[in-house]
């Protein structure tokens, strides 16, 4: 998903911290937690370790600020 999204746009999301700069992933191996995307039901996914599969629908921002409590 990280590759698929960055093939379409320059960045992925905005940092929750600091000045909230645009982010585009960092470690690309599922460790740094810097490429979160969300399923429409709010489930959080790491873009870099999620295969792009048929029917997968994602959003680039959490609907509410529940990103702290989602699994």
């Amino acid at each position, binding site marked *: 998903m*990280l*590759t698929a999204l*960055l093939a379409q746009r*320059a*960045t*992925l999301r905005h*940092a929750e911290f*600091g*000045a*909230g*700069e*645009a*982010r*585009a*992933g*960092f*470690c*690309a*191996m*599922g*460790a*740094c937690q810097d490429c979160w995307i969300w399923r429409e039901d709010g*489930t959080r996914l790491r873009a*870099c*370790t999620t*295969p792009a599969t048929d029917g997968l629908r994602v959003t680039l921002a959490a609907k509410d600020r529940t990103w702290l409590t989602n*699994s």
Partner: protein
Amino acid sequence: MADEQLIVVGAGPAGLRAAQTLVAAGCSPTLVDESRAGGGRIYARPPAPLPLDARALYGTEAARATAVHALAHLLAGQIDYRPDTTAWNLAGRNLYVVRNGQHETLPFDALIIAAGATDRLLPIAGWQYAGCYSLGGAQLLLKTQACAIGRRVAFVGTGPLLYLIAAQYAAAGAGIAGVFDTSPWAARVRALPELLARPSTLLKGIGLERALRRAGVPVHRGIVPQQIDGDAERGVTGLRWLDADGRAQHIECDAVALGFHLRPEAQLADLARCAFDRDPLTGLWMPRIDPTGAAACRASTSPATARSCSARSRPSAVASSRRSRHCATWATT
């Protein structure tokens, strides 16, 4: 032993060999793998439909990679192999794992930790701009996604991976702004006696430098990174550094790959209450292990039994002949 609950965490070369050894001894370990197919990050495989061309992807390590993949396939049919599974906590003799949002607690009698390593990173002003990636991440995106992290990439940091990955980008035809090595030439000369004890490592290093020179990639040594230039929305736009003579320099680039050797993924060993020592050579805190690989424990309460494992699978973070090959580092990512 055969009826004990044994868990191996990590299915890179070290974890797979550990599981293979246990199976050969009549045990039936559980193998916990965070990725989708065994091989670890070093021998990560591209997802279908990208082709798996072992020679192109793994170069001089192609035969080893193919053997590791075959072993992963074999073991998956023999033992409780759990891909896509993250070990996220350890307490007492329970390992807590999650797979696709489903949590589970796995009790164990003995645990082998083969969690590998990740890039050792030091912050640089501007590293928060989009387009700055870890060196290992830059390599994974090339190997498994056939993508470069930018159109003009600066490789910043130090260690053999800096040269290896820059050479892999060059071979793939990616645009490279340069290699920016923070270690001075004098440090490389000082390391020569130890490197001579590992002639294959030395030869690989010489080969990489030659490949970079042929590709016209500028290599800057003894630099001090000053600033990654960038824009909050557009990301990385350039790199500023002091050269070996202390002069301020600047180059335009749209991506930075950053890494200073590797560091062990030691969180599980820490949770298992293993004792740690600071390694004076690397400046890293490493689990204290005896020659058999068994970890020493720091707690007086009954701790988990943990072993750490290493396979010689990558140019080691620091070439050092005084270390044993077995369990020398966890540099298996």
